[in-house]
């Protein structure tokens, strides 16, 4: 596992003030196993935010 490559990729993106979400963008450029892991995390984050929006949109006050 080339953990240094992962560190460099994330640091570069952070220093370049990369637009969010970082993970989704990084997933395409990371080496091997990290790309899969970043992709999973990005998908999960996306699903969570979708769920949150749905909950917010449906949780309307009675009045």
């Amino acid at each position, binding site marked *: 596992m080339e953990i240094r490559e992962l*560190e460099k990729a994330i*640091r570069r993106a952070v220093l370049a003030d990369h637009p969010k979400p*970082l*993970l989704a963008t990084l997933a395409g450029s990371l080496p091997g*196993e*990290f790309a899969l*892991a*970043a992709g999973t*995390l990005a998908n999960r984050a996306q699903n969570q935010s979708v769920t949150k929006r749905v909950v917010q949109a449906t949780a309307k006050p009675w009045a």
Partner: protein
Amino acid sequence: MLEELRTEVRNTIYEYCADPYLRDAALHALARPGFALNGESHCRAGILSLEAYRAIGGDPGDAAVQAAAAIELQMESAFMFDSVADQEVDPDDGLTPAEELALAISLLSCGNAAASQAAHRIDPTGSTSWRMQQLHRSQIEASTGQFLDASLQKFDHATLDQGLEMTSRKAGGLGKLSAGLGASLATDDLEIVGLFEDFGSNVFTYLQLVDDLRDACPDDGHESDLRQQKKTVPLIYFYDYLSQRAPEAGNGIIPTLESDDAQMIQREFRQCGASLFCAVVAETFLNRAKSNLADLENLLGTVQNLEHLLDAIEAGSQEVLSVT
């Protein structure tokens, strides 16, 4: 299954720690938060051992439960060593660091005695030595990780490679011995036992990375690993980031934090990408564990119980790993 496991832990202490002063101290220590006899504890190591056994050999009998209790005692022994190493022995527990260490060694020995007896009960006429050899090798791996952890603390600088190696040996070694012992009681097939060991190692390394991320710089007022300058994976990333931002501190040397403002430090930790970094590494180990399960499914037919275990572990970690 948890209650059965806790009862067996208690029985093991009564059987092997007969002297009342040692027995009472052990039972008292095992009731601490996170320890086997505490009602809130997940007993993950013991449960992993039992589920590994179940995936191969069906319902675990008394010997498999005894082995799982042995694993729990070895796990608690490691926790107690950590509390001494981190100078976190709580005086409220009524033990000096020397007593804590002596108790840790007692629990480790107690676990070994119980594991040996469990192996003999499973196979009374065969040789149990290979199973114990496997167990001891994993214990030595975990101890190597503990040694590395203690060694890294005396240096100003640790590399990410060192941090990850320490984590995967220390936590991974404990996962390896947990799943490996359960599996070795159910089969003599070394390929299957090896796959279970890999699975346990990857699961526990994942869990440790999740813990390290949670404890690095918490915003709930708990004592942070950062304040103690621990050399965990997310913090080594953070130290490197701070060093590069302040080159006069020297590459990799832990710089003095500019502020004691906890909120500012937390913000800086989040912004530097340390959480992202650690989450990706943790997820990589989780994916490896899933890949081990796929291999085991090919060999065993079904590993549904282990899939459920992994799902529960993954679900419990999502809040910490929630990064974008």
